[in-house]
């Protein structure tokens, strides 16, 4: 259905790219995502969906859960895609430069062009929306995949697109290094996934998840020892490979480097989207997971993410560590095979993606206010926390939104992040896991320290004046500001009317368990 629609639309873009302007391509990609979201929404109320439909001979399996999360992913993706063209639009209005093909160039003001003359002829960057569409395709097929082969293929589709995305900015040494790192280590993890899958296949001869599920539930009861172990090792290694992709703890080491190196827009994409799809894959196929593994990984993620973040002075590295600790929380919620666990996972994923998206959007917007002469990189203008110093006095609204999102991340009560944490801790307590809930509480406190450091920096008076003062703040793209406003208000006012989100999550979770 919608997958086919996406594929055809994706195919048209490379053909048309030679004579279409970048902004149009971005708009088209945005519309594609939005439209496929609409299509998905249209089919949401098909009656048999609640019990799951197998498509393409059982290679794909769609349920209400996968469908609703697809909508979520598509909308988030379209929002992230909005960032660049609207930026360009502003620049166009300001300068009326004609070089429409080279839109990265348009981001750069003339002064920076002098330092980076090679930026021109960088036409391959025009493929950004195309690649984004590819990874979205990969993600969506991963969510509804129901076969080992399809799973691997869609993971690779997603990952390869991401590798390219990371190296998008060829002229930046750090971005290329990060992309290469990502590629090599990602290849390593793909090996693990492949190893796991082949172990499973060699032992069982099955690739279909449904059959595997049946087999596992049968042998799980009858043979305890020797026969079960191969399947267990297989799934274990498979899961470890997937954990690498979401950057969970002992396998997280690539994440800070990569996130730090690539342009901020790509970081936005990297921190939110691939995690989302793999986590939803976990939810969909939770028979594959060993809950002990998830708990260990969650524990390590929480500890490493919150403690290591303390020593960071680069903001994107810090956010990477914060992501790691949040992933730990999600994994923890995921490891409980109950309806509560599912609900808290879904809620946490939702709120985390929204808050994180908001933070990165604000980071990009704040980056635009910086003086172009003083920054080191044009694609990620804000690299150090100290660069945020005194931003409150130049753009109070944006800074307050930023602090609110950070507060929400650290789980301060009236904001949405608190409820996420609350549900996770609640689930952990209901399952009698007191130690882990204690760890959550302590690590939350520790991670609050670095969030507060950012906020403190924001509100400190600026010593060296590297901002374009008032006029810079007017230069923001209106649509992004609009989105930031909506997201921030959502974060604040979730408490007042939480019913729609909680109810829909509850319904989704219920269909997953009882239908």
């Amino acid at each position, binding site marked *: 259905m919608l997958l086919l629609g996406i594929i055809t639309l994706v195919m048209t873009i490379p053909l048309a790219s030679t004579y279409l302007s970048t902004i149009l391509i971005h708009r088209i990609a945005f519309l594609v995502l939005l439209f496929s979201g609409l299509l998905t929404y249209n089919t949401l109320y098909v009656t048999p969906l609640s019990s799951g439909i197998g498509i393409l001979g059982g290679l794909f399996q769609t349920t209400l859960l996968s469908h609703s999360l697809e909508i979520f992913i598509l909308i988030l993706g379209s929002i992230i895609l909005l960032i660049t063209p609207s930026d360009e639009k502003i620049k166009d209005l300001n300068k009326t430069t004609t070089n429409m093909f080279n839109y990265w160039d348009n981001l750069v003001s003339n002064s920076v062009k002098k330092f980076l003359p090679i930026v021109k002829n960088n036409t391959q960057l025009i493929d950004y929306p195309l690649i984004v569409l590819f990874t979205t395709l990969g993600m969506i097929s991963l969510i509804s995949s129901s076969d080992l082969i399809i799973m691997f293929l869609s993971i690779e589709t997603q990952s390869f697109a991401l590798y390219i995305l990371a190296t998008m900015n060829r002229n930046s*040494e*750090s971005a290329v*290094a990060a992309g*290469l*790192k990502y590629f*090599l*280590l990602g290849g*390593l*993890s793909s090996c*693990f996934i492949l190893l796991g899958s082949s172990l499973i296949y060699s032992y069982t001869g099955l690739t279909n998840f449904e059959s595997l599920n049946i087999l596992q539930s049968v042998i799980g009861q009858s043979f305890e020892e020797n026969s079960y*172990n191969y399947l*267990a*090792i297989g799934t*274990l*290694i498979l899961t*470890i490979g997937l954990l*690498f992709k979401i950057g969970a703890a*002992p*396998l997280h*080491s*690539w994440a*800070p*480097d990569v996130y730090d190196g690539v342009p901020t827009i790509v970081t936005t994409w990297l921190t939110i989207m691939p995690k989302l799809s793999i986590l939803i894959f976990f939810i969909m196929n939770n028979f594959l997971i*060993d809950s*002990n*593994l998830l708990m*260990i*990984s969650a*524990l*390590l993620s929480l*500890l*490493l993410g919150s*403690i*290591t*973040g*303390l*020593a*960071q002075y680069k903001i994107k590295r810090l956010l990477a560590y914060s992501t790691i600790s949040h992933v730990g929380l999600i994994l923890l919620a995921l490891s409980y095979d109950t309806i509560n666990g599912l609900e808290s996972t879904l809620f946490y994923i939702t709120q985390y993606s929204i808050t994180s998206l908001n933070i990165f959007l604000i980071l990009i917007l704040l980056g635009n206010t910086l003086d172009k002469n003083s920054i080191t990189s044009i694609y990620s203008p804000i690299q150090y926390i100290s660069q945020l110093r005194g931003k409150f006095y130049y753009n109070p609204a944006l800074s307050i939104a930023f602090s609110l999102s950070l507060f929400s991340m650290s789980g301060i009560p009236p904001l949405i992040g608190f409820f996420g944490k609350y549900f996770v801790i609640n689930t952990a307590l209901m399952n009698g896991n007191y130690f882990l809930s204690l760890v959550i509480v302590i690590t939350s406190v*520790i991670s609050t320290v670095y969030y507060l450091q950012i906020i403190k920096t924001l509100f400190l008076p600026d010593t060296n004046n590297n901002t374009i003062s008032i006029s810079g703040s007017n230069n923001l793209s209106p649509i992004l500001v609009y989105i930031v406003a909506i997201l921030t208000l959502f974060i604040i006012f979730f408490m007042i009317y939480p019913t729609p989100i909680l109810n829909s999550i509850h319904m989704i979770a219920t269909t997953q368990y009882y239908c």
Partner: protein
Amino acid sequence: MYLAIILIPLLGSIFSGMFGRKLGAQGSQFITTFGLIFTCLLSFTAFYEVGLNHSPVSVDLFSWIDSEYFLVSWGFTFDSLTVSMLIPIVFISSLVHMYSISYMGGDPHTQRFFSYLSAFTFCMLLLVCGDNLLVLFVGWEGVGVCSYLLISFWFTRIAATKSAIQAIVTNKVGDWGMSIALFAIIFVFGNLDYSSIFSLAPYINTDILTFISLCILIGVMAKSAQLGLHAWLPTAMEGPTPVSALIHSATMVTAGIFLMIRTSPLLEYSSTALIVITCLGSLSAFVFASIGLVQNDLKRIIAYSTASQLGYLGAVCGLSQYNIAFYHIINHAFFKALLFLAAGSVIHAMADEQDVRRMGGLAKLLPFTFVVMFIAALSNIAFPFLSGFYSKEIIILSGYSQYSFHGSFAYWMTTFAALFTSIYTTRLLYLTFFSIPNGPRNNYENTHEAPFFMAIPLGILAILSVVFGYLSKDLFIGIGTDFFANALFIHPNHIIIVDAEFALPLFIKLLPSILTICGFIGTLLFYEFVPNILVEIKLSKFGRMLYTFLNQKYFFDLVYSRLIGLVLNIGYMTHKVIDRGTLELIGPTGLTNLFNNTSKNIASLDSGYIPNLALYIILSVITLTGAILYLDDARLLLIFISTLFLLNSRHFTTKTNSPLFY
């Protein structure tokens, strides 16, 4: 109407405090004073309705604390005790307001002053009218705060701020006792309502009641300046004189006594507490009267007189004669307010001179002030047939009629205190008005009689000081009067009023009066004709010691400052060694350092060198697989994690400075 009594002072305070700048000095004077006069009229009506017609009113506003079985509401009750207490509070407060219009007229902060005064009145009304102990406690704290604000009204004077701090700290000690009493009451009775507590009191263990009563007594000691926690009252005289008249003589200091009267159903069942209260009260009466003998500051003498009178009140509460205590509260309020206001008038006239040794001969210059002050002084020393006489006499006599050791103790102590009272009051009068002028010439040239607004309150109070005692004696303490009905409770075993009135030996009965009159006349004679003898007595070795002893207030301040210095030193030591030392090192600083170091250690592992990363990932895969499949005990995992904290990166990180991978 009943709520208006409480609210009008609050509104007046808010208006003159918040909008004083808009209203101007005269506007806020007008609003607060008029509000108080109106409240005064209302409370007279209330007195008529509730007190004379016996129809108690209770107003339940809304729930305040609603926690399981513990319910506290904002409720007010107006029984005969409350409405009678309203009379001195509101009446004197309105007179003081009126007096202050003139007295504080030249002050740049007039609005603030009037706002504080009204706020104080409001808090006092809250204290009196509440129908549970928590509302009372709110008022209790409120008057403490207002007292602090008013004492330090002239906040640029170091002495004023010092004494304000002393007052609030001493009151905090009392509040501590009070709050323990409240907690104990919640624990024992499960509620704070007067009605529930008092109806349950007979069924509660006496020891528990004694504990509660003693805790209440600590609160009373601080608020009503009984011996031990009294030090703040004399120094509180640093505040403006109207404040001294209103707060530190007539109303706030009686809050403690009021509390004892209010909680009489509790106290009555604890004989131990009663004995303690009696002894403490009579001792205070004696000690403060003797200190008053040798003080030289006009206001301070009156302050010690107040403290001594409060001792009387405490003693009579201990003797279970709450109606007599209450009767004396009202009488005392009138004549003591008059004494203070008149003293204020003298000080005003003498260009703010307060030392009695530098006054003298003012009787001719300030005839009106002299007359009212003379009346007040006579009433203060319980000269027969003035207000003070009726109440003080019966207090002293009820001590003897208890026929017990502590009763006799109270009798003798208070009798001598009465003698001392008469001596120091007469000394005050003589030095101020009769003796040869000792002040600077300028002061005398500029003396002026009290202006109109100051004279009105003086006149009214003078009349009341003369007649009120006689008029209301039968109402409050007449034999068989049912005025107080259920508002206070005297255990049937403790009723001694008949003995006190009719059964005492004639000598005992007349002794206080005789001593008082002897003291009065004797002092006058000594000072007029043979003052040298007094000087010689003072200069003798024993006399000098005694004088120093009394003048230094029994060395209470010295002991306290040594003691407090000691405690503060210990506190400094514990702060330095335990708080900022050990605990800080283990707690905040240590934890922060631990986490920061760990964070740096772990972060330094992220070398960014791809082979390192790959190796690291493969190692963790192996570890994870092993942990899941072969590790049964989760505790081993904890050990594994804790190594993260201990691992020191210096031993196994390779510094790679490759330009490509950084």
